[in-house]
């Protein structure tokens, strides 16, 4: 299971007064555990192959969920691991589908995650790599030397989340204007809508409305 934000109450009301009476309810956070072996499908073969190549210490956790496998990787070993994943004939993940960032503010010590989806056309397999980095030191090695396609994807992740990809040839903003301040898709960045007046009533932007989650 992935990493969960701890939630209080039932209706997510944090700014307005809680009238539901569920304010003290704490939604439990599932334990962050590795999935036990065997993983099933082709996942065991990949994990075995990674162990054989000497990456057993590079993988912090392995999560198998909904028919997908996620390797939580230490950031120091990411580049090396990606190279092996691409070049090793038994693995051969020749296509990097994309890089996406996820911001988990509640996960102290690794708030920012870079998520890589790899595709092997040779073996018709998919895996996911996930690297968590602290907000104070958001550095990950760039995968551009291994997968040139990561170029724009990493720029986008930098633009939206502020993850710095070391070794990227030109890590500049890609979607936002160059002089933009902040990284807009982080959880601590407001959605930034304006209130709208409709028939005399003012409707706040979506992020300031009452929510139910």
């Amino acid at each position, binding site marked *: *299971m*992935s990493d*969960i*934000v701890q*939630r209080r109450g039932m209706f*997510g009301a944090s700014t307005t007064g809680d009238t539901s009476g569920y304010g003290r309810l704490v*939604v439990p956070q*599932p334990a962050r555990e590795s999935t036990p072996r065997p993983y099933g499908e082709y996942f065991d073969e990949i994990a075995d192959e990674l162990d054989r190549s000497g990456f057993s210490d590079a993988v912090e956790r392995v999560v198998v*969920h*909904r*028919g*997908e496998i*996620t390797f939580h990787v230490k950031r120091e070993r990411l580049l090396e691991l990606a190279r092996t994943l691409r070049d090793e004939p038994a693995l051969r993940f*020749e*296509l*990097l*589908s*994309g890089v*996406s*960032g*996820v*911001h988990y503010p509640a996960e102290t010590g690794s708030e920012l995650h870079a*998520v890589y*989806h790899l*595709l092997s*056309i040779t073996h*018709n397999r*998919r895996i*996911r790599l996930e690297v968590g980095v602290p907000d104070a030191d958001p550095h990950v090695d760039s995968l551009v030397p291994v*997968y*040139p*396609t990561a*170029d*724009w*994807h990493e720029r*986008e992740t930098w633009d939206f989340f502020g993850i710095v990809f070391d070794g990227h040839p*030109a890590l500049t*903003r*890609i*979607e*936002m*204007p*160059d002089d933009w301040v902040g990284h*807009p*898709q982080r959880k601590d960045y407001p*959605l930034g809508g304006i209130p709208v007046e409709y028939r005399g009533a003012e409707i706040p932007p*979506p*992020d300031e409305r009452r*929510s*139910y*989650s």
Partner: protein
Amino acid sequence: MTTTYDAYKAGATDDGAAEGRVFNLAGSDWDEVVEGAKDGDTDERLVVNMGPQHPSTHGVLRLILTLDGETVEKVQVGIGYLHTGIEKNMEFRTWTQGTTFCTRMDYLAPIFNETAYCLAVEKLLGVTDRIPERANVIRVLMMELNRISSHLVAIATFGLELGATTVMLNGFIEREYTLDLFEEITGLRMNMAYVRPGGVAQDLGPAAIAKLRDYLKRMPERFKQMRKLLDANPIYLARTKDIAYLDLTGCMALGITGPVLRSTGLPWDLRKSQPYCGYETYDFQVHTQESCDVYGRYLVRMAEMEESLKIVEQCVERLTKGSAKDGPVMIEDKKIGWPAQLAIGTDGMGNSPAHIGHIMGESMEALIHHFKLVTEGFRVPAGQAYAAIESPRGELAAHVVSDGGTRPFRVHFRDPSFTNLQATAAMCEGSFVADVIAAVASIDPVMGGVDR
């Protein structure tokens, strides 16, 4: 062509263009250049800013071309002029409302955006196997129709950009007929939000099958005409053959998928290799070309449209007889299936009168349930899922993260246009400036998908 505040000017010093004297032009001050050219102290390289608003029909794409005469020395691509923040907006809406947002990403392929998103949500819910058969057939039907309409626009705008208005008019009128079907089935021409987590919003209307049959009768002849117009047209061949070469190695390195990849000879199509929505039960072929050029990509698209028509035919067959003839189009689970009951009214899609009668007049529980589902939405178990489908442009995938709430924690779309557009430099550098347009058009990027 327009010039704007140029963030790339500073970066322009790293190529030779800025070593000699530099002239910056914004339209009318040519005297300075003429004076400068007299000195002879000038490099012949010319940096041209193309876009973001320009006559070619591929959206707000900005290209910064460094030219040496007619030859392109360097291409830099500037994107982000259509960044809409859709991914962030989806975090503030319920799971079902998300379809309304993601359908507006790649606006030529709205059904694909919705389906990728819904498949990911269904994966997280663990209900992939419980989607009704009829819903899956309708999804496939809609996707293939959408593939046809998208490829038609690709070919039409491509013709327009090369200067052939006839191609554009032909492509767009056929697209109109496809959009008529969309309108008949979903109530909308574009941005339908028709595919929802759990199935599709509503069943086909009474006239849909007859219209589909008419369409199936009409289109093969029309495709033949388009092929007659283009396949061996000497001008078209001159503009497309051996232009924008990108081989398999390049495609792999740059993560290219879709028709561009298939024009290198690799029959990689997610509908065949990692089937979804029951594609493994349909009879169709994956067409490839070996030429790695613009013409090859055109032929792949043309062949794909013909294959799509075959699939549409099979869908119509299944929708009229067999196990998918009738039955629900939304998952039976009442906790997920929203919209519960929809119908097409004169002003588009909305709640059906029968459903309103039921919740308002007959059942208090139904009313409460309806209220909860509409205001709060359903909860999706925590975790993350990645669902990839074959969109007209390549692998379109949704990476969906849930924290167990009624709204997505994060949604990211891996859009094929975004990835494929990176190949522009690889395709164009060293070619003529006129071929840049052909190269970009053969990638068929949709800026709504690129910038999201």
